[in-house]
C-alpha cells in the first residue's frame, strides 16, 4: 500500500465532457493516499463525467490528470470503479458470488486460476457489505438495494488503492447508508483513497475535500468551506438546515 503522503490523484486545469463538449472545466485537485473526495451536485452537474474520466473511461478534453503517478486507466489492479447503474443482467444466471468474484478479474487476467486468497477476498468482501447470506442466490432475484451491495462488494474485492464510487448509496436503506459510510472509513484507514459522487450533503461530513458542482466547479475545499450557504444556494437553490 502507498505511503500516506503519496499523491493518489492530481488534476491540473482538467476539462471533462463528451464529444469535445465540456461538461465541467478547470478542475484542479490534489489528493493524498487515504483521503476522501466527495463530488456533490444535482443530476447532470458533471459528477459522473468527472468520475468516468478518473476511471479512464472517457478522455479528458483538455488539461492533465494523473492517478498513482501514471495515466488514468492504465492500472486496473490498483483502481476500482463502481458505476452509477451497473447493469445486472436478468437473462444470465449469475449468482452473487460470481458477480463479486468479477472484482478479482483485473488481478487474474485471462488465464490465471483464482487462488485460495482470491476466494477468501471474495468471501470477506461479501461479508463486509452484508450480502454473504445471499452468496449462492441469483442476483436477478435480489432487491435493488441487495444488488447495490453486491456491486459494492465487487468493487471492494479489487483491493484497489483508489476507489471511485458513483452514488454507492443509491437504493440503500438507512442501514445500508451507514454500512457504506463505515466501509469508506475502513478503506481510508488502510490508506485507500476514495472519490465519492453523491447527492447527499451528509456524505460529505467526513470528507477531506468537497467539490460542489453545477456543470462547473462552484466550490472546492474542506466541507466547512465548500458547503457554505451561498455555494449551496447557487448549486441547489436552497441551504441546509442549521
Amino acid at each position: 500500500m502507498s505511503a500516506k503522503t503519496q499523491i493518489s490523484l492530481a488534476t491540473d486545469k482538467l476539462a471533462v465532457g463528451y464529444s469535445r463538449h465540456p461538461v465541467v472545466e478547470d478542475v484542479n485537485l490534489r489528493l493524498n493516499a487515504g483521503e476522501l473526495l466527495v463530488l456533490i451536485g444535482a443530476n447532470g452537474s458533471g459528477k459522473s463525467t468527472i468520475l468516468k474520466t478518473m476511471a479512464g473511461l472517457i478522455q479528458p478534453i483538455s488539461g492533465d490528470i494523473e492517478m498513482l503517478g501514471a495515466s488514468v486507466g492504465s492500472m486496473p489492479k490498483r483502481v476500482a470503479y463502481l458505476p452509477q447503474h451497473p447493469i445486472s443482467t436478468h437473462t444470465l444466471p449469475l449468482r452473487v458470488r460470481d458477480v463479486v468474484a468479477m472484482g478479482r478479474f483485473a488481478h487474474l487476467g485471462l488465464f490465471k486460476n483464482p487462488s485460495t486468497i482470491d476466494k477468501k477476498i471474495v468471501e470477506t468482501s461479501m461479508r463486509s457489505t452484508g450480502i454473504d447470506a445471499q452468496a449462492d442466490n441469483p442476483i436477478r432475484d435480489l432487491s435493488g438495494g441487495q444488488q447495490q451491495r453486491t456491486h459494492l462488494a465487487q468493487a471492494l474485492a479489487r483491493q484497489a488503492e483508489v476507489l471511485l464510487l458513483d452514488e454507492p448509496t443509491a437504493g440503500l436503506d438507512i442501514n445500508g447508508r451507514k454500512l457504506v459510510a463505515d466501509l469508506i472509513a475502513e478503506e481510508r484507514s488502510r490508506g485507500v483513497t476514495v472519490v465519492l459522487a453523491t447527492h447527499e450533503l451528509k456524505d460529505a461530513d467526513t470528507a477531506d475535500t468537497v467539490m460542489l458542482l453545477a456543470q462547473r466547479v462552484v466550490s472546492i475545499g474542506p466541507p466547512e468551506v465548500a458547503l457554505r450557504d451561498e455555494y449551496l444556494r447557487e448549486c441547489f437553490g436552497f441551504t441546509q438546515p442549521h
Partner: protein
Amino acid sequence: MIGAAIGSLVMMGGVSVVSRRLRLSGDTAIGLLFVGMLALGVMITSRSRTFVGDLSRILFGEILGVSIGDIALQLGALAIVTVIAFLARRPFLLLCVDEGLTNTSGFSSRLFHNLLLMIVAITVIASFQTVGTLLVLGMLVAPAATGALFARRISTMILIASVVGAISTYIGLLISYHFDLAAGASIVLSAVLVFAICASFSEMRKAVRENDANEHEHAHEHQHSHPGSHFR
C-alpha cells in the same frame, strides 16, 4: 461459405457501429442489420432462375443434404467457438454486467465485444446449412433461454442449452421423417416447444413455492395473533 463469411464481417462491423455510434442497444442493432442483410440476400437470390429453391434452402436450410465435409466443418466451428468462449469467459461475463467495468478491469470492451460477435457469426455460418438463416436465430436463442430458466450458474446453463439443442434436433428430425415436414423448421419448432413446456413448468413451480410460502406466513401470523387458540 465465403459469401457468408464476408456477410458476417459486414454485419459484425455494422452492429458495432450502430450500437456504439448511435447508442442503440446491441439487440436493436442485430435485429436491424439481420433484417437488412436478409433482405439483401433475398434480393440477390431473386436474380437466380431457381429462386424459390435457393430461397427455401437459404432461409430454412437443408439438413438432409448435409455431407461429411459439412459435419467436419461444423465440428471445426464448434472447436473454435468453444476455445474462444472458454479463454475469453471473464471479459465476456464482464460485458454482460457493464461495459465500463470490462474496461476498468483491464480488458478492452471493444475487442471482446467484436470477438463475441465473431463467434456468433461463426456459429451462424456453421449452422446455416442445417437450419437456414431464418431459423438459426431460433436455435441460438431457444436452447439458451431454456437453460436460463433452470440454471443457477452459467456453466449449468451452457450444459442444459447443449442438451436441449441436441434433443430438439432429434425430436425435430423424427417429426419431420414421420409426418413428412420440413426438417429445419421441425427442429426449431421443437426447440421453441421445449422452451414453452419448460417455461410453463418453471412458472408452475414458482407459483406453488409462492403459495407454500404465503400459507406458511399466514399460519405463522395466525399463531402469533391467537397464541392460545388451540386450547379453546
